[in-house]
């Protein structure tokens, strides 16, 4: 089992999820199974984390031939880039099973499948394998929103599904293009991402393929202006699905850009990085400003999440170690803080039966523990030093300044924008006077406190002592950046040579 | 000349198609389909003769068997239709309309 620790982490939840869906399991039993399985995955994950030495390369590699004639392999592996994303998922999933007790078994089954597929997408080292997990990841979300969502669930489901699928089909075309290019260049079929660094793509087709990849990931992240599915989906989805979407799935989009786009499309990436960086930073501001106008706290958090994703994505496009490490760190930090916020929103919604900010008030007095936890997650989300949110945001802003001053300054405004809507919401929900509705609000139960405690502790620990985490991701980030810079130099040399040749003529 | 047989087969087949697409009487449509099957049979047997191989005969036999099965089912459907709607018009089936 421990030679195949990644496969176990992927297929254990998927199998359990399928069993839950197909076999007649009672409601509470399925929740218990879900919890046990997710804890098992967490234990495997911790073992993996402990065994990870962080030298910068792929570890825990599993490889076997899958479709021989096309050179498709079942390749799994973890490096510094994927490790923390993987761990964020593993750590956060058990919480959901502890928190939401009133759902049907399909709910838990879908969650498990989502967990497995996400782990798969993060570990996959083969483009085709990645694509499959990427698509599988969407299915449980589709069902969860469609079956257990709020009032506008149908249109929200359609929107997210069609949007995402449109993106991923373009990506599939781009993957096939890459495979074919590899075949023409080296004479053998391969979709192994590790080998793609040697691939040289040229011309408008390469740009198109790059656009295909970026579009798929931009929709998933979501980058401005492809974010419009997000508020609807996040709002209508049941809290667990929102949690999965915001905390992990969006991060996989970011992760995938680093893992797949940067090594393969180095020259295109460096060429369009500025535009993409603007998309990121504008998205941050745009969604942040839109958040202030929300009357529904879940939708507000959705915009807030989109806003943060803008700045997280920005970190990739800045092309320096600080920003990239910041992004990777922020992936986890944001997963914990926003994830927790959405879970809190779910609890609020479940207990108060409303999503309107105006209906609430005075909860801090009624439920101090809840308020404290919420405040900590909120402060992490606005990037206060001492919480996990600061480190990543600071690194990204620092990197952005190096990349481009205007972008850096705009990115810095996230300090202000985030605080505006968050405080506004906090004031209306937690402060001021209690009303009849919030009068009955009861504080977190012991189980809930126990479920949230790891997240809260993680938020604080990652803020105060982030170095152990950074140590694991920094080498991989450095490798990515150096290969990217190398690419840039090669491109520059090519331009120079072309210039010289023209002069000779 | 085997060509004549095949040409005849084509003519019969086309007449069958014409029957299917231009008539609304269920029986006529059904028999037109039988006509097309027969045209195919004729082609099979001609080719069988051409290559002096009897596989075509076997296939023709099977087609006849299938035609028999089809006849049984189709006529059952026709009876049902007549009972149900009292007419023999194919145009009363318009459930495919979106």
């Amino acid at each position, binding site marked *: 089992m421990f030679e195949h620790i990644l496969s176990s982490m992927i297929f254990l939840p998927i199998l359990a999820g399928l069993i839950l869906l197909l076999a007649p399991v009672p409601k509470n039993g399925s929740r218990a199974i879900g919890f046990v399985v997710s804890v098992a995955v967490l234990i495997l994950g911790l073992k993996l984390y402990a065994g990870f030495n962080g030298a910068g390369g792929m570890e825990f590699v599993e490889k076997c031939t899958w479709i021989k004639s096309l050179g498709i392999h079942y390749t799994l592996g973890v490096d510094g880039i994927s490790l923390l994303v993987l761990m964020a998922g593993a750590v956060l999933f058990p919480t959901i099973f502890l928190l939401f007790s009133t759902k049907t078994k399909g709910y838990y089954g879908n969650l498990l499948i989502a967990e497995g597929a996400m782990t798969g997408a993060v570990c996959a080292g083969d483009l085709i394998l990645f694509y499959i997990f990427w698509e599988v990841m969407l299915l449980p979300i589709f069902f969860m929103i469609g079956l257990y969502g709020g009032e506008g669930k149908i249109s929200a489901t359609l929107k997210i599904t069609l949007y995402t699928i449109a993106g991923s089909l373009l990506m599939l075309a781009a993957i096939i293009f890459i495979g074919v290019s590899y075949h023409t260049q080296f004479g053998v079929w391969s979709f192994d991402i590790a080998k793609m660094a040697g691939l040289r793509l040229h011309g408008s087709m390469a740009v198109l393929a790059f656009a295909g990849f970026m579009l798929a990931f931009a929709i998933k992240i979501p980058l*401005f202006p492809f974010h419009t599915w997000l508020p609807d989906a996040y709002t209508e989805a049941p809290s667990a699905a929102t949690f999965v979407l915001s905390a992990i799935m969006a991060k996989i989009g970011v992760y995938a850009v680093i893992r797949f786009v940067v090594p393969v499309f180095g020259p295109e990436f460096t060429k369009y990085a500025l535009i993409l960086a603007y998309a990121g930073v504008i998205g941050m501001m745009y969604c942040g400003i*839109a958040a202030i106008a929300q009357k529904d706290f879940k939708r507000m958090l959705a915009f807030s999440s989109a806003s943060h994703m803008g700045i997280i994505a920005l970190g990739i496009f800045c092309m320096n170690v600080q920003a990239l490490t910041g992004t990777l760190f922020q992936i986890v930090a944001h997963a914990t803080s926003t994830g927790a916020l959405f879970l809190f929103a779910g609890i609020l919604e479940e207990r108060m039966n409303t999503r309107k900010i105006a209906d609430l008030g005075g909860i801090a007095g009624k439920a101090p523990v809840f308020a404290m936890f919420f405040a900590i997650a909120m402060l992490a989300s606005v990037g206060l030093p001492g919480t996990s949110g600061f480190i990543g945001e600071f690194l990204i802003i620092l990197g952005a300044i190096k990349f481009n001053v205007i972008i850096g300054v705009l990115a*810095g405004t996230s300090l202000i924008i985030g605080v505006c809507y968050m405080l506004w919401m906090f004031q209306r929900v937690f402060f001021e006077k209690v009303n009849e509705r919030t009068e009955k609000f009861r504080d977190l139960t012991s189980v809930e406190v126990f479920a949230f405690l790891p997240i809260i502790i993680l938020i604080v620990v990652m803020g105060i*002592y982030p170095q152990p985490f950074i140590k694991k991701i920094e080498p991989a980030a450095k490798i990515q950046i150096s290969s990217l810079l190398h690419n840039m130099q090669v491109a520059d040399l090519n331009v120079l040579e072309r210039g010289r040749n023209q002069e000779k003529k | 000349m085997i060509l004549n047989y095949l040409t005849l087969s084509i003519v019969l087949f086309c007449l069958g198609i014409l029957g299917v697409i231009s008539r609304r009487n269920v029986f006529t449509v059904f028999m037109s389909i039988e006509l097309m099957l027969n045209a195919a049979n004729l082609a099979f047997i001609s080719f069988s003769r051409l290559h002096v191989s009897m596989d075509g005969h076997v296939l023709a036999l099977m087609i006849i068997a299938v035609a028999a099965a089809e006849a049984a089912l189709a006529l059952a459907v026709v009876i049902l239709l007549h009972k149900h709607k009292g007419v023999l018009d194919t145009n009363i089936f318009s459930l*495919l*309309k979106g």
Partner: protein
Amino acid sequence: MEHTAQFYLGLIPLMPLIGAVVIGLMHVMTCRGDRLPNKLYAVLACVGPVVSCIMAFQVFAILRTLPVEHRILVHNAFTWFSVGELKISMGFMADPLSALMLLFVTFIGSLIHVYSIGYMADDKTFAKFFAYMNLFLGSMLILVLGDGPVVMFVGWEGVGLCSYLLISYYNEDQSNVLAGNKAFIVNRIGDLGFVLGMAFLFWGIGANNGFDYVSLRANAHLLPPAMTLVVCLLLFVGATGKSAQIPLYVWLPDAMAGPTPVSALIHAATMVTAGVYMVARFSFLYAHVPAAGEIVAWVGILTALLSAIYGMFQDDIKKVLAYSTVSQLGYMFAGVGVAAYSAGIFHVFTHAFFKALLFLGAGSVIYAMHHEQNIWKMGGLKKKLPITYLTMLVGALALSGCPPFSGFFSKDEILFSAYANGFKGIWMIGVLVAGMTAYYTFRMIFVVFWGEPKNKSAYDHAHEPPAVMTVPLIILAVGALLAGFLNFPALFGGHQLVSQWLAPSVLDHHPHAEAATEWMAMGASVAAFIIGISIAFVKFAKGVEMPVFSGFAKFAYHKFYVDELYDFLLVQPYKTIGAMIWEHFDPDVTDGPRKATAFLYGMAGSAFKVIQTGYVRMYAIYMVIGLSLISLLISQTLN
């Protein structure tokens, strides 16, 4: 010795932080059942600050034993984060500047904690208050001790957060929470400047040479002048946010919504002086670009003038003090701006005493008057509250710059430095403001303590607060009286101990001036004080009714409508844009392509719907037509 001191450096901020965490956890764990006794919390709350204070004195003493050029103690607790060139360790540094700050922050902080035990005795969430206070003090100590801009920023943001928490402490009242929000958001605007300044500084010199103050100071000359100017101005934006200068001063008067000890802690000793401290900290940068210093000085003195005008027309005792704080902060910036860093810091030091004293005194008055803050409803209290009256009088004299109270020395040094360094305009405004300060301070004293009581029943019930509150007042009064002598001017044969002490940390620009000039400057200040206090005496000593403001006074009373202007210019457009994005732009423009696609598909669907008659025969016909077309096509190719 040194090792112990380094050990202390880590512990000093940690003690209040531990206190905060312990108290907070205890509070949260017991909030559902029976609360623990307040006394327990009170003891716990005071342990941290007091221990820190003792250690701060130790550190100071150890520092004094070192030779002047080696007066720097650094303690790297652990590597905080390290990415590429960026290596940030959680390091704490004590040099003369931070040690001086450390002393009075911990000392006054401890006193305020003690005072709060009395002031907050009836509060329902007593423990929460002290958790916040401890957290605040801890953050402030991190700010002061941080060995680099990033660690400093932790404290910087931490005090911002705590001020938010403490200002909106009575959170059932919307206006309090709004004041808290305002404080946090305005501070954040400043923080943006700080972060950007930090980033530019880092890429300018920090990336290659280390990013702590020692290295930065050693390499400051490597930064190009233009860049230095940009960094200095950005950092100053941060300082305007934290220290309530134009244009970001608006949060501070509103921050009076918090409990009075909070106002004392925030406005006197700690948070608001952080900006001044930061400019002094970065004196090695400001020394390179005089233009930056000039801007700082002008912003400071204009803030001083503006808030002094406001202060003359307020009727809330805490607002008067709040504006006087803003005004004094303006002085401090004027001081650091004209490169008289030690003078600025000295004013921070003296101001900490007398302003804490005034706020705590005001707290006593408010406590005695059952939370009445309008000065026009008080009056004649000097008989009822003798200790408070006397101590506040000391504070007021110090604030107004009456010799030989502490405020006189520090303020005079700033004004003299401005004059001697060639900033005559600043000096003139400064003297004018000194007069106005004396006027509004004594207006408050006269209206509150002299004359006849306006509210008879409240007056009858007023009584001197318990000793736990008056003792800190007395200690602070002694401090306010004597602190000035620490930097006794050379003119009177003093040794300027504070300036000498600070010399290794800050790059003072020492003016060379004649003694006559110094006498002249001092005379002007004293004259302004006398004029100010005389006008106040004439107008208010007899006791007057609440005036009805009109004309300019009304305009000033409403703070020149700056809040409303900001609201109109910034807040409302922000909200409008947000609503516009959400209601129109997002669904119509950004989502436009998606909607257009959907619409096209719908159109295509309805177009093709026509041929979907539902008749099987028709489908057969389509099939045959298709077959026919394909046949035609293939026949073509067969030829």
